[in-house]
């Protein structure tokens, strides 16, 4: 796998998703794409660009502003063997379709003892920055992950995004794919072959011995930054990308903690009742005796996302806060802490808090 990635093309997450959609439409006659904006000139952040021209209106379906109905229509199409990929441009729009998702999509397989299934992918985009405000910047992954019968995944890199999409649509279950808006522009190597195990569980993104950092989605990038800085003072942090939130496979995290004895989980969504709660609870149940320090969690605080950028800095955990939690878990001395802080400060290059990188100019 590592080898094939070496030789691979560099794609942004958005490009990788677009490739996944195109390949799915190509390979699977039952697959179709549906959502508000899938035929737009801007193509859902570039992820659907050109698909309509190639596959036509019957397989790339623009929809009315009817999230509940078209989610249910996708479920209905599954009953005859179709494999829809739908997209809502913000997680919040999906809140209109929770009934279809939770009551129908998640339960029809069980109800029919597997005679029917709902092999659909539901792409949801997590907003952040550029003043999105309270109703356009929620993440809510643990809400989806709380529902048996759904699969829920959050890619942190291009290849996973494509492979989750393609594995999901080839599979037999409804997959909620949460795409972070700040990752769409992030590039990474993408091999030709699809990794069929991408939905099987977490992956170690960086090896380490002193501490285990578990993160999802965009927070994996912040965790890797923190791990980089920690390395400067001789701390090796293992960084695990949780990837699949349901079904949740925590054995690799357990193994890591058995070695490191220290755990910090960083959520993309809210800290309270976030994925970190389940991870920390499970690890505490299973590995209590291996914990050398209390486990720790980071995530969004218990309030809505405000629009003003001056309120964003204290809302989103960054590498700095991750390093600080790590320092607590490790009982690092003051000198080392300051050193790590300085490194992160320098590397941040005065980036603005409400945009992912200087090329991101909004408004979306």
């Amino acid at each position: 796998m590592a080898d094939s990635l070496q030789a691979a093309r560099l794609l942004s997450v958005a490009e990788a998703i677009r490739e996944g959609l195109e390949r799915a439409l190509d390979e699977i006659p039952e697959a179709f794409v549906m959502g508000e904006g899938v035929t737009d000139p801007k193509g859902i952040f570039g992820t659907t660009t050109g698909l309509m021209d190639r596959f036509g209106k019957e397989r790339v379906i623009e929809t009315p502003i009817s999230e509940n109905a078209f989610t249910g229509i996708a479920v209905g199409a599954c009953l005859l063997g179709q494999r829809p990929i739908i997209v809502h441009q913000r997680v919040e729009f999906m809140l209109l379709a929770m009934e279809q998702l939770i009551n129908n999509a998640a339960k029809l397989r069980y109800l029919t003892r597997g005679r029917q299934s709902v092999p659909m992918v539901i792409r949801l985009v997590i907003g952040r920055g550029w003043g999105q405000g309270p109703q356009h910047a929620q993440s809510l992954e643990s809400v989806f992950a709380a529902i048996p019968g759904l699969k829920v995944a959050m890619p942190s890199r291009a290849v996973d995004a494509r492979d989750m999409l393609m594995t999901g649509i080839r599979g037999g279950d409804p997959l909620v794919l949460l795409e972070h808006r700040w990752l769409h522009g992030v590039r990474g190597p993408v091999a030709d072959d699809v990794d069929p195990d991408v939905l099987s569980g977490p992956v170690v993104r960086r090896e380490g011995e002193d501490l285990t950092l578990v993160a999802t989605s965009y927070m994996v990038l912040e965790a890797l930054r923190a791990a980089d800085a920690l390395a400067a003072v001789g701390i090796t942090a293992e960084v695990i990308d949780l990837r699949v939130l349901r079904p949740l496979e925590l054995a690799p995290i357990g193994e890591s903690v058995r070695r490191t004895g220290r755990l910090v989980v960083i959520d993309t969504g809210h800290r309270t009742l976030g994925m970190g709660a389940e991870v920390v609870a499970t690890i505490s149940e299973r590995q209590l005796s291996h914990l050398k320090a209390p486990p720790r969690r980071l995530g969004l605080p218990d309030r809505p996302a405000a629009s003003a950028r001056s309120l964003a800095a204290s809302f989103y955990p960054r590498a700095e806060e991750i390093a600080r939690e790590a320092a607590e878990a490790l009982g690092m001395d003051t000198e080392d802490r300051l050193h790590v802080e300085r490194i992160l400060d320098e590397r941040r290059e005065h980036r603005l808090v409400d945009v992912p990188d200087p090329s991101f100019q909004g408004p979306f």
Partner: protein
Amino acid sequence: MAKFDRDLAWRGYRALVRIREVELAIAARYPDQEMRCPVHLSVGQEGVAVGACLPLSADDLVLAGHRSHAQYLAKGGDLTAMLAEIHGRETGCCGGRGGSMHLLDVEAGLLASIPIVGSHLPLAVGVALARRQRREPGVAVAFLGDGAVETGAFHETLNFAALHRLPVVFVLEDNGYSVYTPLAERQPPRPLTDVGLSHGVEGQSVSGDDFLEVHAAMETALVAARSGAGPQLLVASTSRWLEHCGPYDDDHLGYRPQGELERAKQRCPIRRLGDQLRKSGELDDRREKALYADVRSEIDAAFAAAFAAPQPSAATAAEHVYG
């Protein structure tokens, strides 16, 4: 007025009587507490389900709501599998996972019964969309009550179906009530067919007590839907005779105006069609008696088989959550 089709009328009559007798048998045995799930009986409303399902071909697929016994049987469902489902048995059409509120049976062409009002309507349109995408014949038929008209799901779905001119027929069973609440306390006064107009869909209004009228209107709707004219709406007036959920008469609760139920029973779809059949010479006391005997012995046997069937084993409880 079309010529009286004796054969059709007889088939309709047989189906009406059979469904009525099944529902009455469930009502009679429900107090035994062996059917341990909520049941929404169709007594009084059979004319709509039978009239709308008899013209269907095997390609046509039905989706229903919480009150779906009549639809299941009219569409050719397996009576024993239905009763087994209501008894929570492994041999039920959902293996006991769903109960009465989730009757569904892919083979019979009842693709889903969903007890969340309005929730099956998008599914039905998804089925119609899939039929078109797969170049398969067949119309999706969605049954709904007058209450489902109040759900946003219905309107969003009708708009989508009309936009894409999908082959779907909405059969609206207007029994005038949502649980205990009459239509006038839930919707402003206007004909229910106006709801179709809102989405550019012309509708037909029929008496759900008149099997032949429903049947004829459904045939018209099916022809239109099959020919690409887009979604069709059939509004059928009808009456529920028993309580909303459960086996009993509940007229004593006083939520209906006095005499309403009695008048409704005068319009009984079975009696109406029976009278027509008698007039035509197709039905007489002897044949009627034979029919009832036949139906009842089938029902008794089905109950016996359902009751005797095994309950789902706890060892299988965790199966089929994921594929």
